[in-house]
């Protein structure tokens, strides 16, 4: 494998090629205008929407920008860029407790719709925690999808961690029950629970999630709880709905935004942060075990607005 470069380096490298459209238009907005006028704002609006940020959040961002332009007597489009970068960066900032679960006795429930990268993220996270000297166990509570448990088992092997699962079609809450007790007995630091992908508009499947959550609370009340929703970075506005609906059935503590190694910009994360106050904690940047990185707001935003 090629030398290991960070995602952000890759992203910026990639930006010059694959993110050309977005970057060019950002350049165009900031450089092609000499005045901050309606045309400028309109163009900016379009550019932000192209980044999957969404209509409403884009409007909010632009309203804030307009206020600032008035209050701070901003005259140059270029200054607008600095303002925007700062604004989004601050909004996406994480607080100190964000990664507490990594160093506590914790149960991490990983949820999300189908195919977003839950199992893969668990594999990567297991590898990462294990490398930090933690005793890790993964639980295969996806008893629905064909060969889901084989997939997780393979990741457990790659990461060198324990695996607990159940047969296809069995009760996921029962798997979690077994896993919690095994984790307690074996003195596991972090138990990572993989769940089946489910669309948020399927009521019975969403209820099943609360049931899993209840099992953990009941059987392992002393454990620190972390619930990560995995969102596919390629997803558009529906990711916001997903985050909302999943929040209704469980207390989500953070987001993992995957597949950012593609050409999608993941801008919906900005909308989710601004509407739901859910922080992005990790990003997925590939299919190998070390393609998971802690979210870095500064670099994320710089990369988003990067121009040569």
């Amino acid at each position: 494998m090629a030398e290991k470069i960070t995602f952000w380096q890759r992203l910026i490298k990639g930006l010059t090629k694959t993110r050309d459209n977005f970057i060019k238009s950002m350049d165009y907005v900031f450089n092609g205008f000499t005045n901050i006028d309606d045309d400028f704002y309109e163009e900016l609006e379009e550019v932000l929407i192209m980044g999957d940020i969404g209509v409403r959040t884009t409007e909010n961002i632009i309203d804030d920008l307009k206020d600032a332009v008035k209050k701070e007597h901003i005259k140059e489009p270029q200054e607008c860029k600095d303002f925007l970068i700062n604004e989004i960066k601050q909004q996406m900032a994480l607080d100190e407790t964000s990664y507490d679960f990594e160093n506590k006795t914790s149960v991490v429930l990983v949820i999300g719709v189908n195919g977003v990268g839950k199992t893969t993220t668990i594999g990567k996270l297991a590898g990462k925690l294990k490398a930090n000297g933690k005793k890790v166990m993964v639980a295969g509570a996806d008893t629905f999808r064909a060969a889901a448990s084989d997939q997780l088992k393979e990741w457990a092997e790659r990461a060198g961690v324990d695996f607990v699962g159940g047969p296809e079609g069995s009760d996921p809450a029962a798997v979690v029950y077994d896993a919690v007790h095994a984790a307690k007995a074996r003195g596991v630091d972090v138990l990572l629970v993989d769940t089946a992908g489910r669309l948020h508009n399927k009521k019975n499947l969403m209820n099943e999630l609360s049931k899993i959550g209840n099992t953990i609370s009941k059987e392992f009340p002393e454990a620190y709880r972390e619930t990560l929703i995995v969102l596919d970075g390629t997803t558009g506005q529906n990711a916001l709905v997903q985050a909302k609906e999943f929040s209704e059935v469980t207390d989500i503590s953070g987001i993992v935004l995957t597949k950012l190694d593609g050409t999608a910009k993941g801008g919906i994360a900005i909308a989710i942060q601004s509407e739901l106050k859910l922080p992005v904690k990790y990003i997925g940047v590939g299919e190998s075990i070390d393609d998971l990185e802690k979210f870095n707001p500064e670099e994320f935003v710089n990369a988003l607005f990067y121009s040569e």
Partner: protein
Amino acid sequence: MAFDSLSEKLQGVFKNLRSKGRLSEADVKAALKEVKMALLEADVNFKVVKQFTNAVTERAIGSDVMNGLNPGQMVIKIVNEELVSLMGSEVTDITFGTGGAITTIMMVGLQGAGKTTTTAKLAGKVKQKGKKPLLVACDIYRPAAIEQLQVNGKKQDVEVFSLGDKEKPVKIAKEAMDYAKKNGFDVVIFDTAGRLHIDEDMMNELESIKSNIDILNTILVVDAMTGQDAVNVSSTFDEKIGIDGVIITKLDGDTRGGAALSIKAVTGKPILYAGMGEKLSDLEQFHPDRMASRILGMGDVLSLIEKAEAEIDKDAALKLSKKVKKASFDFNDYLLSMEQMKKLGGLSSILGMMPGMNSSQMAQLEGAVDDKKLSHIEAIILSMTPAERENPKLLNPSRKHRIAAGAGLDIAEVNRFVKQFEQSKKMMKRMPNMMGKGKGGFPFPF
């Protein structure tokens, strides 16, 4: 939800549009600004939205505003028509090999799009057509990808060809073809690994499968929830390996699915099927026109327009359906509903609108009434006295003879009609349940 506010905003815009007769530029611009936002909220790619709204602007300015619609609604009507024409109206299927050639299908797409699941679903579909499909496990990368296909293959009772994960996908594909020829399989579906469109090595892998095997159908599998990037993904897959059709998955979710429009707009390739769930039977024929209205997401406005178009008098419809329930439906009602039907554009279009109508019922009804017969029926009813129209029971043989003479028709035809009327009445009692709620619930007595 974000969209609610847009819908409200749109209603607000409509209220402010007052021009009568023709659509002014201001009307069109104001309404289209909101349409643009709606499409963007649905994840239609920005560039596609721009092109699209430009085209609609041109068509809309100066158009006559239809009776019963306000200018805003008129713009939406035009928008919807253009959307439908962009999505296409035809239902398309995969291409089957001719002259004994094996039908080859290669599933391609991003990671997690739904390729493996759809491979198994498709196998079920072609099996139903009496074919013998072979599934080929070409994803040698993702953990347990082969097992996943094998488990699904077993569920569908379809054989899966695999050489494990140590051989190159091209080699697996070639050997699978030999195996298929030797063993009488007539459809071969290749499940490939998920890949990014910018991953050159992985894209080359697909190219080399294509250059070694005559792939009749390269199917791009796309998640319905995809955002702005759908354009990059689909155009790159199409340019690099060439796609013949698209399958959209996870439409059982609540996404508006604007990606479908983007993909259609940039590749021009037909969308063949829609994935509607995780079960292996959850694969449906794709209906482009229905997708168009899902993307626009203005079902309420659209049904308003439909109603105005048909000039359906809601009161009359209500009165009729009440009568149907009480079985007090008479010849006057029959006449009235015939007029309504004419306004709706003929019998077959109405039958097509009725959900839950199966094809044999369709055939029965279409056989019972064609347009020539309709004019005869009209003549028969018009030859009845007011009392006879209100009370079908009055019709005795001598009255029927008088009516036949008045309508200039054979007595047999009058008899047939009266008998059919009685049958329809019985059938109609069951009809209201068969008819969709959204369509005005108008009972058609045939």
